[in-house]
């Protein structure tokens, strides 16, 4: 039974009680049950752990804490054993009995389950020593690893809803807005608009009612930080929304979640209900006269529905198509009423700013971008996952220190930031401090926080084609420039990668890119040319090689490459001959093998199968 909290004192008393109940020295096994670890089978591990504990009559002494994503999903399923903070990765169901008998009962570390630093080969025992975590600044995402997202008590015990009480009882709405302005918080949904300013315009806009919305559409296929926040710590987002609603003067909130996120919806629904039971949401919050309720709306799934005007149109039940918004949505948004839209991560920053103070917050980051940002680090890098870093950290630190560098001794080529319509940043700019303005200056953007590392094996023309292909599919098709422009850019890129490139193609791409960016209605068209223009800017030689020499330097574009066998290196082992699906390789014992170009379908199997590096790609 949850009793309604009628004032801040009630909340503090509850917090103290909850903290007393939670002994930090208690033996606890934390299991990540985020979507990543879930896919690796953490569900079975949790049941096995429970069964084993019962068998050993340890259920009273050892607690199992099921949490949201810790960020290092690639190594999942993850287990952290407290109080020692032992870090076990890639745990299998079969490991469970041993974990209990060796680690829990005898206190021994199981070597096999430790993380090995791929760069140094060193085995790492404790969670906070893992290089992937060490350089992060996890002010938003850190709590994910210690709380059960379905328990509001866990959240309250770590200080949850303290900011709300402070905002309601020690600050006026104007003071909250001033504080958010001073903190320098900018929107994490991509545009980087100053959050405090947005709130202020919405508060001052004429018209009732006002709406606040949380954008959890997260349409970028590679990004999942918003999902992980909602799944792993829904109350932090909710608390931010309640504070924002109070500051803006809104009684109705919406969370727009994409429909592919059932766990996020489920955990959010539980959070809403629990917060209402405690009177932290709903009517007369914390005994005040302020009411605020939140509805969950499920998005249709199209990428463009995350755009503010398209999102509001779909909330109204209309086609999710962007509209011209020269009158800003803070003045005329949902149902033509003042509407404040912020991203999930933006909302999650708010309680911190209020609780710890805007001065504390503004120390983190750069001149123009404060706080941290969560990135989804993927691609050709040793450690992949969600990383939360202070603004201003360099790309090099993210790729090499946190990401552990490029696997297989390959050479770094570029990092693509900002989601599908971000740009590719070359090696010469690796020391770039990561913030909103620096990324835009070099032809990329912060966007959704996607970060894809590419090595010498990536063809930059092919990369540009890949992203444009996504964008031409996701364009809503309303404006000529975006619809026809992205399609034509795709056709030209396709020609170039297929060996049909002509002189003038690069210039035409540049001209077209300019028009698509300048003439389109919404930011999808406005940013769509980024992947093309940035690769032309930094990797023009690769375009030229494809067009003039009909050659793909990275050996990716099938129409432009040839597989041959170096007879000096070939030991005539015959492996490639067996692997070839097309019977294109001939040779006999002790006779160097040969590839028949007529028969070769360029599948690359021979390269994979040769142990002597004898198959060459040209």
């Amino acid at each position, binding site marked *: 039974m949850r009793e309604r909290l009628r004032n801040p004192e009630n909340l503090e008393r509850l917090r103290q009680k909850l903290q007393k109940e939670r002994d930090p020295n208690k033996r606890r096994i934390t299991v990540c049950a985020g979507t990543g670890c879930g896919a690796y089978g953490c569900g079975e591990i949790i049941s096995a752990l429970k069964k084993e504990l019962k068998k050993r009559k340890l259920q009273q002494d050892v607690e199992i804490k099921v949490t949201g994503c810790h960020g290092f999903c690639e190594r999942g399923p993850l287990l952290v054993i407290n109080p020692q903070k032992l870090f076990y990765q890639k745990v299998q169901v079969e490991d469970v009995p041993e974990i209990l008998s060796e680690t829990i009962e005898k206190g021994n570390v199981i070597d096999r389950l430790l993380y090995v630093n791929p760069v140094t080969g060193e085995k790492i025992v404790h969670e906070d020593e893992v290089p992937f975590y060490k350089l992060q600044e996890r002010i938003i995402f850190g709590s994910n690893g210690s709380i059960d997202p379905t328990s509001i008590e866990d959240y309250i015990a770590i200080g949850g809803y303290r900011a709300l009480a402070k905002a309601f009882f020690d600050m006026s709405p104007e003071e909250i807005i001033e504080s958010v302005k001073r903190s320098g918080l900018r929107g994490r949904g991509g545009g980087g608009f100053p959050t405090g300013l947005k709130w202020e315009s919405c508060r001052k806009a004429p018209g009732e009612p006002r709406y606040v919305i949380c954008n959890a559409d997260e349409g970028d296929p590679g990004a999942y930080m918003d999902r992980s926040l909602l799944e792993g710590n829904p109350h932090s987002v909710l608390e931010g929304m309640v504070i924002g609603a109070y500051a803006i003067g809104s009684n109705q909130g919406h969370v727009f979640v994409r429909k592919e996120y059932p766990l996020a919806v489920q955990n959010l629904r539980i959070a809403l209900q629990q917060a209402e039971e405690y009177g932290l949401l709903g009517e007369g919050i914390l005994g005040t006269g302020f009411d605020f309720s939140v509805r969950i709306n499920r998005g249709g799934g199209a990428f463009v529905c995350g755009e503010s005007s398209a999102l509001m149109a779909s909330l109204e039940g209309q086609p999710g198509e962007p509209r011209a918004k020269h009158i800003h949505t803070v003045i005329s948004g949902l149902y033509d009423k003042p509407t404040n839209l912020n991203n999930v991560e933006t909302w999650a920053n708010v309680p911190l700013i209020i609780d710890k103070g805007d001065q504390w917050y503004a120390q983190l980051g750069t001149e123009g971008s404060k706080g941290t940002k969560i990135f989804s680090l993927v691609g050709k890098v040793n450690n992949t996952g969600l990383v939360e870093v202070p603004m201003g950290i360099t790309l090099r630190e993210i790729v090499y220190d946190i990401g552990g560098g490029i696997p297989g001794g390959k050479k770094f080529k570029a990092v693509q930031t900002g989601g599908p319509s971000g740009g590719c940043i070359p090696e010469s700019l690796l020391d770039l401090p990561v913030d909103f303005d620096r990324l835009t200056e070099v032809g990329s953007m912060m966007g959704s926080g996607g970060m894809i590392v590419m090595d010498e094996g990536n063809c930059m023309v092919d990369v540009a084609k890949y992203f444009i292909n996504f964008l031409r599919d996701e364009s809503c098709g309303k404006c000529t*420039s975006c619809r026809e422009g992205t399609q034509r850019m795709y056709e030209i890129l396709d020609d170039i990668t297929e060996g049909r490139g002509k002189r003038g193609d690069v210039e*035409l791409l540049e001209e077209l890119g300019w028009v698509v960016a300048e003439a389109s209605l919404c930011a999808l068209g406005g940013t769509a040319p980024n992947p093309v223009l940035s690769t032309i800017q930094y990797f023009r030689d690769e375009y030229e090689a494809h067009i003039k020499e009909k050659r793909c330097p990275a050996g990716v574009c099938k129409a432009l490459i040839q597989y041959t066998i170096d007879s000096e290196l070939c030991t005539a082992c015959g492996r490639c001959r067996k692997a070839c699906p097309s019977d294109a390789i001939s040779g006999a014992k002790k006779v160097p093998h040969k590839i028949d170009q007529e028969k070769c379908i360029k599948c690359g199997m021979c390269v994979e199968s040769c142990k002597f590096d004898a198959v060459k790609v040209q």
Partner: protein
Amino acid sequence: MKTMIEFTIDGVGVEAEEGSTILPVALENGFEIPHLCYHDEVSPYGACRLCLVEVERGGRRRLTASCTYPVLEGIQVLTDTEKVRKARRMIMELLLARCPDREALQELGSQMEIEKPRFELREEECILCGLCERVCREVVGANAISFFSRGYKKEMGPPFRDPKACIACGACVYVCPVDCIKMEETEEERTIVRWERTLPMKKCKACGQSFAPWFQLEYIKEKVKLPKDFFDVCPDCRG
């Protein structure tokens, strides 16, 4: 009385009612701005992007569609800058490459001195301006057609390719800027070719001439609550 807004177009001072957008005001004042998806009778949509102008506001200058940009006090509108010409030309090239045989487009193209688009030609007829849909929804009230799919696969037509809500009034035929909705009429029936809709014509009880699709008259009678026998005779015979 509506508030009047003052601003300039190509350096010339103009006045307009609050709430209108730049394009109609510019046209009324004799400025030439090419446009395809705008029509006075329906709400602006901003799809063709041909009506681009540069607008300077608060020291910032940007390219924008004039049909959807509201008139605001003190803005400076520039209809014929280098940027505007360059962008419109590319938009025209894209439209011509999509629909090479539309006369209206060919004419606009030749005004911009485009000989041949630099892209592979396709054989579409519709430029997806959305005027037919808006007129059908906002003016006629029939809601018979809509956009479906997105991106380069976007199309305009009756939902599920079933034109059952179309009353064959012909309003869309009239507004289509590239003339791709054809209407065919005989004594007995009228066909809206593009939507594959054929409806029988109503004959006048007095003079025997057919004067409108039967379905359309039923629809109007319903909408404005006219007497049952209102359309038994044609407007001419009704006098």
